[in-house]
């Protein structure tokens, strides 16, 4: 009843093309923003920030990046963690070597560095596609981690290869507590997510989708294939790079190149598959799901096991978690191949016509 756009007339093109054309959506969106920006920092404890909310936001950003490349432009990539690593380590070096730059600029520059690396490793996409390309992006994954380990310049000659993130200040505010980290990350993620949403529904995004759906046809209607693909690689890597920088500076604090392993690339890929390919919202849902799931499982399984008097040792529990994790992925792929974001859309559609079935 409440969620219905009847009577909301659009009298200008601007009104017709705005991001949230339905008034109820706008209200919901701004309420959500108010909650995450104001209510959450006031009432939530530090543990929740550092264990849950910050990783969710950072991985959402990485998932948005991968979604641009894989979901919108159709180029399957298994190297997102590598681009995150480039972002993290270039942020470290830029802050280290150019301390006079505002840190937010350093982070964005780190994204630009990741974008350049992304373009370099995206070049094969001009010639090859599909799974061949996916394997090719693995080259980025292994090469970047290797290079970061082998050349001590990247880690400022740290003997263990581990970097410790310098303190961050944002417009004079030191970002030193979990709450401040959260708000800082939230600002960046909100702005970048809005940018991504708008890119996706503008000419740029349409070009990506045309290339994804059929690249020959896209070329025939005049979309420059090479430029579009490389653009997708660059923007995607930019997002991953910024996410990597935030991962190092606002979440972990000290990172080594190996933290950005293939497993992390897969995690980001899982997020967009389960969340929904080719949707910005899916990135958030997927990131939430895969951050909450391990915590949830580690609480739930011992509980159930003790209920049935099974005695598992710690190792077995890890293996059961592995199995459930794998089985859940398969389950989601079978039950909802379009991702959880699709469920949200279906729910919205149902709400709109409620109480009628059609």
């Amino acid at each position: 009843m409440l969620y219905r756009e009847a009577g909301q007339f659009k009298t200008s093109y601007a009104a017709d093309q705005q991001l949230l054309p339905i008034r109820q959506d706008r209200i919901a969106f701004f309420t959500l923003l108010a909650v995450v920006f104001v209510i959450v920092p006031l009432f939530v404890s530090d543990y929740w920030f550092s264990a849950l909310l910050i990783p969710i936001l950072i991985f959402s950003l990485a998932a948005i990046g991968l979604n641009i490349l894989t979901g919108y432009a159709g180029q399957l990539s298994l190297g997102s963690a590598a681009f995150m690593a480039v972002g993290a380590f270039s942020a470290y070096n830029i802050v280290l070597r150019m301390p006079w730059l505002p840190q937010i600029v350093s982070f964005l520059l780190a994204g630009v560095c990741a974008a350049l690396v992304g373009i370099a490793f995206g070049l094969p996409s001009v010639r090859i596609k599909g799974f061949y390309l996916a394997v090719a992006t693995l080259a980025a994954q292994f090469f970047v981690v290797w290079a970061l380990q082998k050349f001590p310049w990247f880690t400022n000659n740290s003997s263990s290869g581990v970097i410790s993130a310098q303190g961050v200040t944002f417009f004079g505010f030191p970002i030193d507590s979990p709450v401040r980290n959260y708000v800082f990350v939230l600002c960046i993620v909100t702005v970048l997510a809005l940018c991504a949403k708008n890119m996706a529904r503008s000419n740029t995004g349409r070009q990506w989708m045309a290339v994804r759906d059929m690249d020959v046809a896209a070329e025939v209607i005049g979309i420059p294939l090479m430029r579009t693909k490389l653009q997708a690689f660059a923007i995607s890597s930019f997002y991953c790079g910024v996410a990597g920088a935030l991962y190092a500076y606002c979440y972990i604090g000290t990172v080594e190149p190996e933290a950005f392993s293939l497993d992390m690339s897969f995690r980001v890929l899982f997020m967009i598959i389960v969340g929904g390919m080719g949707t910005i919202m899916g990135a958030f849902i997927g990131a939430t799901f895969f951050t909450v799931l391990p915590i949830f499982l580690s609480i739930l399984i011992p509980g159930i096991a003790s209920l049935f008097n099974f005695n598992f040792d710690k190792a077995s529990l890890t293996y059961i978690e592995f199995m459930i994790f794998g089985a859940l992925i398969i389950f989601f792929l079978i039950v909802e191949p379009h991702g959880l974001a699709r469920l949200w859309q279906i729910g919205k559609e149902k709400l709109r016509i409620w109480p009628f079935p059609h």
Partner: protein
Amino acid sequence: MQFFLEVLIGGLLSGVMYSLVALGFVLIYKASGVFNFAQGAMVYFAALSFVGILAKGVPFGLALILALGIMILFGVVTERFVLRPLVNQPPISLFMATIGLAFFLEGLGPFLWGNDSHEIRLGIPDEPLPYFLDKYNIAISTFDLAAAAIAGVLVAGLALFFQKTKIGRALRAVADDHQAALSIGIPLQVIWMIVWGVAGFVALVAGLLWGARNGVQLALVAVVLKALPVLILGGFTSVPGAIVGGLIIGSTEKLAEIYIGPLVGGGLESWFPYVLALAFLLVRPEGLFGEKHIDRV
């Protein structure tokens, strides 16, 4: 020169081991178009099952048969519960499902059989062959040669199976065109079961050889990462491609490690095969023996 030869031969022989993993992969990709990331986990699971059964006091031969049975059962279950519900989904979904499968196996294996690192003794000594050592002063491991021989027999057997038997013909038909194969009455699901079963068998052989070489441990899963550049070099759909690709990757990888490695500080092995395969793809996007893909608008 002698050193070069030794490195080259060692590389070629280790390449054979890569080919073994790549082979199981090619079989599945050919027949069902599934990019099976779980092949490495299958290798691990197969080897672990074998060792686990052996540890229960079962004789070697019976353990082999039981492990094979487990792998075939795995193939059947996978077909029924993973592939069949995912028919007609985009390839990326199937790929993701196999990653899920890999996670599942990585958990199931140690859950069933324990997570200790095991050794497998196949009764083949891993020491230089005296003949070559005396005559040419080149150290070639007996084990590597035996592994190469086993791989050769396996490939020849598979080639015969594919070319001469009725099932083999059906497999090739399915690989060519699913719909056409269905329309002439080839049961797709049975074929998939067989293919996953055969891939399980190949995984078992690979698992035994890799396990005997490196020990049966979780690191075995990573062999799939060694097999992927072999695949893109040889082409996803070609059995000879998997072999030739493996040989090329194995030898160049070892040579690069020896001759280029010192210049950049070593550790090339993790990425050099990928870059090599990538450079190759730029010239021939469908791999050495892969089928040329023609797009229609």
